[in-house]
């Protein structure tokens, strides 16, 4: 749910861009976004755009959930992806043949339209350059 700080992230997502952060003091990347660097506590890390490539770090095919908001979504893939920039994001894997997924597989960031806002997710399908 966007707030004053995160509005920029969600606005960029609506434009098809995934933003992560990089510390201007120690140079290290981080996710999720914060107003400080979690490595060195320096203020105001800069926003940088991720290229959109990454590896599937872990995933589960959710077959049942008590959450009414997601009951209509099952089966869905709840996953962690390591972006090439060196940060790990939570996401869903879309359009996947769930029986062929494996950790380490290459994935590409795609935006999913959810009630008018864009939710960064990934797909295993090759995206043409």
């Amino acid at each position: 749910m966007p707030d004053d700080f995160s509005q920029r992230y969600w606005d960029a997502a609506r434009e098809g861009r995934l933003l992560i952060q990089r510390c201007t003091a120690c140079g290290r990347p981080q996710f999720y976004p914060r107003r400080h660097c979690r490595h060195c506590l320096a203020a105001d890390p800069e926003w940088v755009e991720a290229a959109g490539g990454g590896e599937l770090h872990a995933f589960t095919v959710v077959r049942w959930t008590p959450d009414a908001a997601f009951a209509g979504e099952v089966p869905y893939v709840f996953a962690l992806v390591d972006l090439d920039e060196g940060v790990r994001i939570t996401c869903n894997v879309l359009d996947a043949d769930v029986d062929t997924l494996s950790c380490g597989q290459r994935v590409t960031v795609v935006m999913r339209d959810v009630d008018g806002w864009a939710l960064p997710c990934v797909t295993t399908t090759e995206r043409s350059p």
Partner: protein
Amino acid sequence: MTSPWSGEAAIVGAYESPRRKAPGMHPYALHAEVIRGALADAGLELGDVDGFCTVASMPPEGGRDMDLIEIAEYVGIRPRWFDSTDIGGAAFVSHAGHAALAIHAGLCEVVVVSYAAAGRSWPLPYEDLPSSPYGPGQWEVPYGPWTVASYALAARRHMDVYGTTAEHLAAVAVQCRANAAGNEHAMYRDPIAVDDVLASPCIAEPLHKLDCCVVSDSGGAFVMTSRRRAERLSGGRPVYVLGAGEALGQVHMNQMPDLTRTVAAQSGRDALERAGLGIDEIDCAQIYDSFTYTVLVTLESLGFCAAGEGGPFVASGAIAPDGRLPINTDGGGLSSNHPGRRGALAVIEGVRQLRGDSPGVQLDGARTCLVHGTGGFLSATATVVLGV
């Protein structure tokens, strides 16, 4: 080096509610019931209690931000020392360690640690989410996390990295069920086989329904006091707190550095070092079993087997009553009792086991028991080492 407070506090009373379903009972009524049972077991009275630990911030526990005060008010305890550390199911294991220190420091003399929840029946709304969808949660909650999914994510990673199988995970559920067979209060007692676990409905791959703990209405309490007072109690069979440790990990899965290792590596090492014991000197263990994977990753993280060896370790019979490390001798959360945060019940079974009155499987001559809690989404851990 052994800590100066090692063995200076003892658990002198323990009581687990025989209830598994308690429709219509507010969780606070369960608190009063189990505190009465634990004090009776200790040979102490409400007026003796000057320390109190509990937490009830989850909806099935009936409380909110002032839960500690409200339960003390409801039960009738006026403590001069208290603790309400809120780290998921590990909380009450953490409280045992804190209470041992407080008793040693002379801040209080008789501490009650109490837990109750109506996970099945109490009609309170419950959202199974790691955090608020505002703030840090906005980068995880929109993707459909819930407890089973988050543990499944880690289990799947362990399988990919180490070749762990669904059969390995199932071996934990099979052993807990076998241990529950003799426990008349256990929620499920009929034996199961690995194939039964694999044939039960898949909730979130690779976790099946029988890889998950039961959901009960229940509670438990234990009473701690100083070594001196413990030795003066008439019916006393004191079980000493030899060491304790705790550690924080993360709430969001995207912040967990290694899904195949929990912060049990720290809490376990600290607890053993403070107890002055090596891991080979542990006779048995009560290992938090929210899910089969929780046990497997915890055994590795504590050092009972090497990283990646948890699957073969549990499948080899090492966790059986005649194995290297018998665990969850009452049937654990997987078969006996799990109202939502089991840590207190694991401590109670550790105490019963060392006193020789386990309701499940009583071992011969166990002198030390490691009790380990894992809270939240592999989020935090607490370990205590008990001895007689």
